[in-house]
């Protein structure tokens, strides 16, 4: 059992492990208190009396690896030559009084995962303008008081936040109170067979959390099976859910198991359950009550041992009130097990960390990695240089082995102001495209002989505006919501996984996807379109499958010239960027297509 889970369950007291802290403070008061009264906090080195000393200390890998968090004073009464600049127009006195903020900016830019506790409170900050900046800074906390308990609490919060900000069962939870509360409840609800109602807007990560957290934490040995009931014709639902014996209906040429059996011993994720018909709801109620299913054509029931997660992008209670959902099924699922995932617009405090993570993980897409390597090699970094998001006020010099992606303030403001109707899924897509276009622009410039003085790539704020304006409905990931956070093994443009895990599941196949997708399809013949018409996908999925094939065809016809494609598709050769954007959104890969 993990320490995190112990906390969530409460009541289990464990002695906290020693925490290694770096104290950055020009005075000796906190140092004395740490040494004398807080044995659980161990100083990783001598107190660093100013910003330059602290940055030099942390720049050594051995020091950084041992540092769990930084305790940072704000007011530094140090000589002027030891001050980090605060900003244009700041006097030395002002710079001293807010020196901790200048140091914090450097820490955030260089080591964004390192938690920082500022040894001050918001009320004591010397300039009001800094409060908003510090409030938005990820993994940054301020003391709420001057006593030892305030320090202990903030240290605990900072370490917990870092733990959650990192990958935890593949889920980024962040600091938002709604997500923290959801995680706490789900950690409890994951245990046992009790059903869970998971509500949240499209793109909030319901299926990702269902699989990566609830199923993973449940400890159940069986598989995780996801099923989208809303897209099935009503007459196929019984066979899909409960299975069918050979000859049960026309076309049933072999016995097939339903998803309840396939998920035996594991977890069954019923997506969009609010869209099921009254008959389907009735059948689901019976299964939940009896824990038995009878395949079509069979003469005996089959016991099932399944943990059901019912997901909805609307309030099920509201659907009950409106007469669209059976009250008895809702009660059987258990209103007390209802957990709501907040939309991204309500967790803006997590936005900075999400943006950073999505940018830095963009290279998990092989196409992006190839672009990164192309640029990195031209800049002398070689291949494999990690991408690092650099805030607008980041350090001028990037650490030697990383490729900085500089997000200017207008771009950041645009991201903050966007309503994110597609939630984290939309954010992931937008940032993936931001990285792609930025790398392409850099690669083009380098190929044209432009010399870049530092390995820092400036994101065009207009590009961000354009991407946000053109943000389209998310690709048809019908059964697999994208991640809640950056722990995404597949990039946003990856081909959608099959609806059900096993091919022999008896589940309807999906619409053909792009060449090179998991289907192994080599793509349609040139000049033809092919869509396997099966009743398992939304109209949107069918439309996008056609669109992918048309783009693929055009790409080949034009030799990968997006300008010519734009001329064909939009009648405007200058719209190449828009076409490239849509190309990416469709999950197509120029590299894969060029490679055959």
């Amino acid at each position, binding site marked *: 059992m993990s320490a995190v889970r112990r906390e969530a369950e409460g009541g289990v007291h464990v002695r906290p492990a020693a925490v290694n802290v770096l104290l950055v403070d*020009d*005075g*000796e*008061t*906190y140092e*004395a*208190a740490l040494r*004398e*009264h807080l044995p659980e906090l161990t100083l990783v080195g001598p107190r660093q*009396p*100013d910003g330059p000393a602290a940055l030099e200390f942390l720049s050594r890998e051995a020091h950084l690896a041992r540092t769990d968090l930084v305790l940072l004073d704000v*007011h*530094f*009464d*140090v*000589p002027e030559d*030891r001050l980090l600049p605060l900003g244009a127009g700041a006097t030395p*006195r002002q710079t001293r*009084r807010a020196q901790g903020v200048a140091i914090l900016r450097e820490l955030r830019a260089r080591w964004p995962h390192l938690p920082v506790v500022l040894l001050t409170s918001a009320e*004591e900050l*010397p300039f009001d303008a800094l409060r908003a900046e510090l409030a938005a800074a990820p993994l940054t906390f301020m003391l709420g*008081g*001057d*006593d*030892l308990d305030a*320090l202990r609490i903030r240290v605990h919060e900072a370490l917990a936040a870092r733990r959650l900000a990192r990958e935890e069962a593949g889920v980024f939870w962040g600091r938002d109170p709604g997500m923290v509360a959801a995680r706490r409840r789900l950690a409890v609800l994951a245990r046992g067979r009790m059903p869970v109602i998971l509500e949240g807007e499209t793109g909030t990560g319901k299926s990702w959390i269902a699989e990566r957290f609830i199923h993973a934490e449940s400890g159940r040995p069986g598989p995780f099976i996801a099923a989208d009931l809303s897209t099935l014709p009503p007459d196929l639902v019984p066979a899909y859910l409960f299975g069918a014996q050979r000859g049960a209906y026309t076309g049933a040429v072999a016995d097939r198991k339903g998803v309840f059996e396939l998920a035996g011993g594991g977890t069954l994720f019923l997506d969009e359950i609010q869209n099921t018909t009254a008959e389907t709801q009735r059948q689901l109620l019976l299964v939940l009550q009896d824990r038995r299913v009878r395949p079509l054509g069979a003469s005996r029931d089959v016991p099932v041992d399944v943990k059901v997660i019912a997901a909805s992008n609307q309030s099920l209670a509201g659907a009950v009130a409106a007469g669209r959902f059976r009250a008895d099924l809702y009660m059987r699922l258990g209103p007390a097990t209802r957990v709501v995932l907040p939309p991204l617009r309500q967790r803006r405090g997590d936005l900075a960390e999400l943006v950073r993570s999505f940018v830095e993980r963009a290279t998990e897409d092989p196409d992006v990695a190839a672009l990164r390597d192309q640029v990195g090699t031209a800049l002398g970094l070689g291949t494999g240089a990690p991408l690092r998001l650099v805030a607008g006020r980041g350090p001028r010099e990037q650490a030697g082995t990383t490729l900085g992606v500089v997000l200017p303030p207008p771009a950041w403001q645009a991201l903050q102001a966007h309503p994110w109707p597609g939630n984290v899924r939309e954010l992931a897509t937008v940032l993936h495209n931001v990285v792609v276009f930025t790398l392409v622009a850099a690669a083009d410039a380098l190929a044209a002989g432009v010399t870049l003085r530092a390995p820092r790539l400036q994101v065009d704020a207009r590009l961000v505006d354009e991407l946000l304006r053109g943000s389209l409905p998310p690709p048809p990931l019908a059964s697999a919501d994208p991640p809640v956070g950056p722990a995404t093994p597949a990039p946003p443009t990856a081909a959608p996984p099959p609806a059900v895990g096993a091919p022999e599941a008896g589940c309807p196949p999906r619409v053909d996807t792009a060449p090179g997708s998991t289907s192994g399809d080599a793509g349609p013949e040139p000049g033809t379109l092919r869509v396997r018409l099966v009743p398992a996908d939304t109209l949107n999925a069918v439309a996008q499958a056609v669109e992918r094939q048309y783009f693929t065809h055009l790409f080949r016809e034009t030799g990968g010239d997006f300008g010519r494609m734009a001329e064909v598709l939009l009648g405007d050769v200058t719209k190449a960027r828009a076409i490239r954007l849509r190309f990416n959104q469709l999950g197509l890969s120029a590299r894969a297509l060029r490679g055959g």
Partner: protein
Amino acid sequence: MTVPDPADTAPPAPPPAPAGGAVEEAVLEMLDDLAHDLGRHIRLPLALLPIDAPPAEVAAAASRAVQRTRTGPRGVFGADELLADFLEAVPDERRGDCAALEASVARAIELATTSPLPERDRLRVAFESVATQIAALASRWRAPAGR
């Protein structure tokens, strides 16, 4: 020296309108520094003690609070030195405004160095009174009539 004990009195009344001329920005900035160097740091050693710290540790913290109030690359300064530095910059016609602050600092030093040491809570109130008086002075000097 006997001085009024701010801890035994009610919080200071809202400041009356100052009688002197405008307070220079430089002095106001020094007052802001004083709020940090003296007002905050005189409280910290005691605040950072465990609630059940033995009397010897309380005495050491109290002594540190007034004698090593502000430490750093520029040196070690006691509460009286920090106050004296500030008062040097205050125009003569404004010195009267600082009487309550001077009294609170003197009281804090007296309590922190007396024997036997007063109760910890009394020390805490005395130290906090210094910050309160600095804040009151800043409020007074920054009021529209004070500029």
